[in-house]
């Protein structure tokens, strides 16, 4: 009936592509906040994989969602601290661009 | 052609009537031809149809609800201010808010040149969508819940929190400093108050063991002492304050504080896009009132159960041919009955005036009779009426607060959320959990 949505692989492929996009953003963007957003994308990719495993492997029924919830909690903490760091650095250095965060050099 | 001589209304009618006639004929023909098939399809896909109908109905009732609340607010605040309020359009100005809506529709929908057009256009839609989508889970009555699914409360908080995204979009895209300040204020306020809002109902979730709103309402069945406002008073207070802030109402309406930042996020909006913000605010007031009455005031449960159990249900089918006769004769007779004493009462009253008055009185009396009959005989109607009474009592409270209180300052607002409401809600959770442990559930 559902050739795509009924299988595990499409979800995993989507997760992998999302992770790759996120990693590109993390590596290539200069803006610290965009990098944080890319990290959120990667974490969501992991979430998606965990949920897919939980949905398709009966022995992991509860574990997938539990993992996803834990990841969301950790992501919230990460975002809070990350944004606080960005704002704190911004207050001193007046720029959100990471390649200008070269305090050690001066 | 006579087209040029037609008034605007006449032109509308000239187009509309043929369209309606042709459309009606086509629809009838289709129904006759495929009626059975359509009915079968609907019957086979009941959940999907139910969802679609619920969505459409929810969307449709959100507008009259907004109109009603706007009228209520205008009139109640006017009474508190010793003014008359709207009194010209309709009886006691009752149609005023509809006219407001029409006015908003007809105004120019101006887009300032420097705004970020897609975001600017999308923002009011997001706000309105977020507020009306939460209407889906409101348990008006046990039989009248659009979608009573298991995670109703979570859904409510999740979707309700989306509106702040729309406010921030509006604030940012308007390219106006007032809007930007309003958007930032809205975001800070929403993030801060969502936490005590969510935490305050955890005690109830512990007690009921469910996140489903119909089940929470069902858990308060019994007398009014079973309502959660008496079992969780602290949670009720926190929840009430937090929903006031979530709905951006006085004294927490800092996001659109007109004395400070003109209209906040809505400063650059006009026409229907402003109307969306405007309606969303009032729909929000209704929704948070409904949620409060469902969670804390027993929702559709009556305060005290009185088992009337009347057996006066008339079997209409037993009347046979008498039914259309009664339906045809009763209005005429009733109208004459009420008109006669009025006509006799004074010689200055003309016959047609007496007839009109009689017809109106008959209409009122028969509507009231049918309402009382339905209230007694049909449990959903009684539940709905109880639910609406509670909800509108809360709406009145919100309007009352707006008429009474000045606005809190933004730092006092944030400090209150973090320093008082959050610890209090945590305390409430601990106390509830402890009590459940002691009592052994």
């Amino acid at each position, binding site marked *: 009936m559902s050739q795509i949505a009924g299988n595990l692989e499409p979800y995993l492929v989507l997760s992998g592509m999302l992770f790759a996009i996120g990693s590109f953003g993390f590596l290539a963007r200069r*803006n610290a906040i965009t990098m944080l957003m890319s990290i959120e994308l990667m974490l969501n990719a992991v979430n998606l994989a965990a949920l897919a495993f939980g949905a398709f492997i009966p022995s992991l029924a509860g574990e997938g969602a539990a993992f996803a919830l834990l990841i969301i909690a950790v992501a919230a903490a990460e975002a809070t601290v990350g944004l606080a760091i960005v704002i704190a650095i911004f207050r001193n250095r*007046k720029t959100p661009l990471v390649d200008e965060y070269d305090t050690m050099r001066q | 052609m006579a087209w040029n001589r037609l008034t605007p209304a006449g032109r509308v009618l000239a187009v509309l009537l043929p369209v309606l006639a042709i459309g009606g004929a086509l629809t009838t023909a289709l129904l006759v031809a495929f009626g059975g098939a359509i009915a079968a399809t609907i019957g086979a896909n009941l959940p999907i149809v139910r969802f679609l109908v619920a969505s459409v109905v929810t969307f449709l009732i959100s507008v009259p609800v907004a109109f009603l609340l706007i009228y209520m607010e205008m009139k109640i*605040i006017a009474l*508190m*201010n*010793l*003014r008359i309020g709207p009194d010209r359009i309709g009886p006691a100005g009752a149609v005023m808010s509809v006219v407001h809506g029409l006015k908003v529709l007809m105004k120019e929908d101006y887009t300032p040149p*420097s*705004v*970020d*057009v897609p975001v600017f256009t999308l923002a009011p839609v997001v706000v309105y969508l977020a507020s009306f989508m939460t209407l889906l889970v409101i348990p008006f009555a046990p039989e009248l819940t659009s979608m009573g699914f298991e995670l109703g409360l979570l859904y409510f908080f999740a979707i309700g929190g989306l509106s702040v995204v729309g406010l921030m979009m509006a604030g940012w895209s308007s*390219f106006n*400093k*007032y809007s930007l*300040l309003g958007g930032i*204020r809205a975001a800070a306020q929403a993030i801060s108050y969502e936490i005590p809002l969510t935490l305050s109902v955890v005690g109830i979730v512990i007690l009921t063991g469910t996140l489903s709103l119909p089940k929470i309402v069902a858990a308060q069945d019994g007398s009014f002492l079973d309502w959660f406002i008496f079992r969780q008073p602290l949670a009720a207070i926190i929840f009430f304050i937090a929903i006031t802030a979530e709905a951006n109402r*006085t*004294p927490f*309406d*800092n996001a659109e*504080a*007109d*004395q*400070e*930042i*003109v209209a906040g996020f809505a400063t650059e909006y006009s026409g229907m896009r402003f109307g969306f913000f405007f309606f969303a605010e009032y729909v929000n007031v209704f929704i948070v009132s409904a949620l409060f009455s469902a969670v804390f005031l027993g929702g559709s449960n009556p305060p005290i159960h009185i088992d009337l159990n009347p057996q006066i249900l008339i079997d209409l089918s037993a009347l046979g041919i008498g039914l259309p006769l009664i339906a045809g004769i009763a209005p005429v007779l009733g109208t004459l009955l009420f008109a006669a004493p009025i006509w006799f009462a004074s010689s200055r009253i003309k016959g047609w005036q007496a007839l009109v008055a009689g017809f109106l009185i008959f209409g009122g009396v028969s509507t009231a009779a049918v309402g009382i009959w339905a209230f007694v005989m049909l449990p959903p109607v009684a539940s709905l009426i109880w639910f609406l009474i509670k909800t509108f009592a809360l709406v009145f409270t919100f309007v009352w607060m*707006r*008429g*009474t*209180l*000045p*606005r*809190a*300052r*933004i*730092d*006092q607002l944030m400090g209150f959320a973090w320093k008082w409401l959050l610890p209090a809600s945590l305390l409430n959770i601990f106390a509830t959990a402890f009590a459940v442990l002691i009592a052994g559930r």
Partner: protein
Amino acid sequence: MRPSLDDPRVAIPAESTWYEPAPTPQTERQAEFLSLREGEMFVNMGPQHPSTHGVLRVIIKVNGEKVVDLDPVLGYLHRGVEKLCENADYHQAICYTDPLEYVSSLFCEAAPVAAFEKLMDVDVPRRAQYIRVLTMELNRIASHTLFQGWMALDLGGITPILWAFIERDEIVDMLAALTGQKLLYNYYRIGGVNGDLNHEFMSRLGTWMSRAAAQIDSNLALINENEIFVRRTRGLGVLDAKTALKMGVTGPNLRASGVPFDLRRDRPYLVYPELEFDVPTRDEGDSLARYLVRMDEIKQSIRIIDQVLHEMPDGPVMAKLPRLLRPRPGRAFGAVEGPRGVYGTYAISDGTDQPFRMRIHDPSFVHLQLVGPLTKGNLIADTMAVMASLDPVMGGVDK
């Protein structure tokens, strides 16, 4: 389309200069004001803004929500009344001054009338003096009740202003019965008042006096004990007595800082020395104190009216004066204590029928200077609370 901040192709200039070129600073102070530090921006309020009483424009330099600096821009209501008065004769000059402070215009008449009477050595009949005191105190109550409503309105409360308007309406109607005008009374004349008290005024006044105190108390109960109101005004915009004196502050704003300076007491005019009343003062000097001092003054005004009604003598209400007034050359300064402070008129006569120079001193003008110093470091919302508590009226500020 707005150019994107993140777009590498466009170099975006400072945000404040996108549409309106920044004005070139003319003074040291303005240069300091116009220099933005990191994270600061200008927010313009007015001349059309919900909380500026009249057409005041305030440019606020904010850092987030915090007000860093503030620059009021005046002149949107400037009519050149002083120049007009120099080109009118003495009677005409009085009615030019009427619309200055339109919420309490009797005081704006009283000051030039006092100055002109000094120039011409006129003795005002005692009954006229009593009538002036009576009407001025009524007008003071009208102004203070309106202030209460404004104060609440600027803090977001919408009801008190409509309740406050009950009293103001009644007083205004009363004065309209006496003077024929509801807003700009034009009642005082050099050497007396225009017409004796009439029956309608007296009967309305009697009815009103019988319930005034209770009614005003109930109005005060609307807002005085409100927790939000008190929290937003207490400790806000504290003005100490020394600064207040240096800044030339007068009236209730000065008395809220603890200086019992009241012209009615310290430099008596008309029949005030014969009347018994207190000068309410507060020591806190914050917005709440400024509000409460005004509310206390309402009660004292009712007390004064009561005494005036009991002691008013009979007699003429106008002194005998020639039709054409040509005072001797000289200078005179007439001052009255108004609801906002000292209204002064400095008149110079050169022997003709027109004042050679007529300087109008308005307290709102002085008090508006304080908005900047008092709001620095507070939030945007506090600007409104401070401005409302100083109670400037733009008609007087802009002359």
